[in-house]
């Protein structure tokens, strides 16, 4: 293998990251334009948004331990009862701050 004497400035790194990000932003949309939307595919697409949300929330909450579970629990209950996301998020953040302050 040849050694790689070339070095690049920070702009090259930033552009590489930007292009990689744009690729992920458009490729799923593009692919779905080339898949026949059968009943199964349509149902998968209907399930997908919630599935992404749950697949992010559950592991991150578990990783945050009991305080995380309490915070998400408080958020969900507040949301079910009051349907106000400002209130639910504020209560969730308050819950996790308190839980951590008390060493949970």
């Amino acid at each position: 293998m040849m050694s790689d004497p070339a070095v690049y400035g920070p702009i090259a790194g930033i552009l590489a990251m930007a292009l990689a990000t744009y690729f992920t932003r458009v490729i799923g949309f593009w692919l779905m334009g080339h898949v026949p939307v059968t009943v199964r595919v349509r149902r998968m697409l209907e399930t997908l948004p919630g599935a992404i949300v749950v697949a992010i929330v559950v592991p991150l909450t578990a990783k945050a331990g009991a305080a995380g579970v309490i915070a998400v629990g408080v958020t969900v209950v507040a949301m079910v009862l009051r349907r106000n996301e400002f209130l639910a998020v504020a209560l969730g953040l308050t819950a996790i701050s308190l839980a951590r302050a008390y060493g949970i």
Partner: protein
Amino acid sequence: MLCDTGKSMTTQPHTSAPAPYWTWGGLSEGAWRSAPLIPGTIVFSMVFGTIAAQKGLTLTDTVLMNAIVFAGSAQLVAIEVWKNPLTLGAVLSLATITAIVNARFILMGASLRPWLGQLPTWQAYLALLQNVDANWIVASRYRGEGGGDVSIYLGSGLALWVIWVTSVIPGYLLGAFIKDPARFGFDMMLPIFFSAMLVQMWRGSRRAIGWGIAGVVALAASYLIAGYWFVVIGAVVGSIVGGFIDDE
């Protein structure tokens, strides 16, 4: 179980939901809908600015990265392998790491196809270039309620973009201004906001079965596989299962 058989929205969202359109008012409406995430975004951006300063990026490069990459988690992970100067290998690994952490955007883009696919192609791709978690969830929830105004999606993304690009400056300059964001739960901002959104996205048990499986699979994957693959694995498995569960 609780099947919303009375709602035609549940079974035919993409045929009964209105075609996509744009309004000026939708931009501010979208910004307002993403407002609960603004405090968390400010803190996240400031923390990133602090780390970027420690890694030797200039302020200009840091602002540029926030402006054109606009993907917090990926930037935070990629900055860990940042070097000065960059070799070709380092540039490629930055791109690879960024794509892996942002792999969830692939699924988000796929989920927007039935809606944005009806737009002129250039409009759809332009809107997608500013996709992040927050405006995607705001838009998905809005679409789930039967909305068609794509400005909601664009407006919430642009609002967070402005916050993301400007907040990094004080973070960079002040260094360790925010010593411990976890103390106020800001590290949990995303899951907290997402769980609130999920309540609004509830549309009966058929989809919830797929969601439950997504959660279990993602949780297992997060213990078995390093990195952020758990999001993609959980969401793909959950939605495939959801696709094979028939309406009662």
